[in-house]
């Protein structure tokens, strides 16, 4: 197969389900490269993330999935290339994003105080915080343990609390980096329900996962990375039915990629 076929579909392949314009999307990555410790970890990445649809980033370990999310969120700077949001003002763009990490970092205070802290940082007036904290905890099913110290919660509860924190911020874009890795099926179901609810609220979901089943359940489009390169960017149904590359075919078939 010619190399050009591997660099695929840089233009959006999916119709927007929700009209853009009032949010910071689309997000364009143009020829983005990232190097660390003398190693190139992301190679010439060009892609566009559109509003409304759920994007799932797939790929084996070391593919650069987490790096891609961190680059988009602004936690790391690309070595070369450009990352452009539709909005110019970076502070305004930042306020419309939330990030849920694989291992949630919760502050040593109560569950409710963790959510309230994020709201305070975001500049939400004190008078509004209580209501929003309560609604967010309600949404993830943690209202009954609002006063419990966050650090004594179970792994699944901690991740739900991290999602509640993101929910309360009312972002337009939510990044999730392997949000259900290490969680049992019940906890995973609870997390996925919140993600689905976020999507229904019109939040752009960008999620990495190892779990093909999860990708099938939650993806509208797939970004498939391998060794820091974009191999496929395709509509989810098409990606799973007819993967366009040998790497993607092997990955979908559950084979181990070299």
């Amino acid at each position: 197969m010619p190399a050009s076929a591997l660099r695929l579909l840089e233009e959006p392949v999916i119709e927007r389900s929700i009209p853009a314009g009032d949010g910071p999307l689309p997000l364009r990555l143009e020829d983005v490269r990232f190097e660390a410790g003398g190693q190139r970890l992301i190679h010439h990445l060009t892609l566009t993330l559109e509003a409304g649809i759920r994007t799932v980033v797939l790929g084996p370990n070391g593919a650069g999935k987490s790096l891609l999310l961190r680059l988009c969120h602004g936690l790391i700077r690309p070595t070369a290339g450009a990352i452009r949001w539709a909005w110019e003002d970076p502070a305004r763009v930042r306020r419309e994003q939330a990030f849920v990490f694989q291992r949630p970092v919760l502050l040593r205070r109560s569950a409710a105080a963790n959510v309230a802290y994020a709201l305070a940082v975001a500049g939400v007036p004190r008078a509004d915080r209580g209501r929003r904290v309560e609604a967010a905890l309600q949404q993830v099913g943690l209202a009954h343990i609002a006063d419990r110290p966050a650090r004594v919660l179970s792994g699944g509860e901690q991740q739900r609390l991290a999602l509640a924190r993101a929910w309360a911020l009312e972002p337009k874009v939510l990044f999730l980096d392997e949000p259900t890795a290490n969680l049992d099926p019940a906890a995973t179901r609870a997390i996925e329900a919140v993600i689905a609810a976020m999507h229904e609220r019109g939040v752009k979901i960008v999620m990495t996962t190892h779990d093909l089943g999860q990708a099938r359940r939650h993806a509208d489009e797939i970004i498939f990375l391998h060794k820091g390169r974009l191999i496929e960017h395709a509509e989810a149904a098409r990606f799973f039915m007819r993967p366009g590359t040998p790497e993607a075919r092997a990955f979908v078939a559950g084979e181990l990629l070299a």
Partner: protein
Amino acid sequence: MGHLGEALTTAFVLIVSADPELLQIVLLSLEISLSAVALAALIGMPLGAALALARFPGRGALVVLLNACMGLPPIVVGLFVYLMLSRAGPLGEFGLLFTPTAMVIAQCILVAPIIAALTRQTVEDLYAEYQEQLRSLGVGAARAIPTLLWDGRFSLLTAVLAGFGRAAAEVGAVIIVGGNINHVTRVMTTTIALETSKGYLALALGLGLVLLLIVVAVNATLMVVQSAARQAEG
């Protein structure tokens, strides 16, 4: 053995009889050392946390210097504070030399680097864990410092205890700036030094035991509080 037995008896008698002179010395010692530690924590913790987060050229050297300052010789600090506070010194007009305030200042200078250096290490480790989350939430340095200090509170208690140990045990600084004046600036360590030099070893040892007892009691109390809180809050 004779001295030790006598000392234990003396210490026991002193404690049980609640000797007023002893009580005054003990209370003044505690007042000075606890004030110095509180002041040093107020100064040292934010400074240590700021150094943990800051990145600038020469930072490594500053960290080494700060760590080295944990071993400041009390006698040298005492001399420095003496020179600053003496009539001819730049702060002489306040008339602080040979007062408990001078002793608090000297001990604070000894303790602040200890608390700052240990805080720097604790907060730096914590920040490694929190950094991405805090940046994602848009937390700036001004807010990150109190947040990290609060979240590191259990570990930071150890820094405070190290500082208290230093303050309670040192004699070199307080004897120079306090002058060991009876009923005014006489504390446990200076009394022990005085009694030893006069040859009253039993009284000196007795006081030494009281000092040890107090240090152990303060540490034990705080440790119990710390472990209970940690258990409750995770």
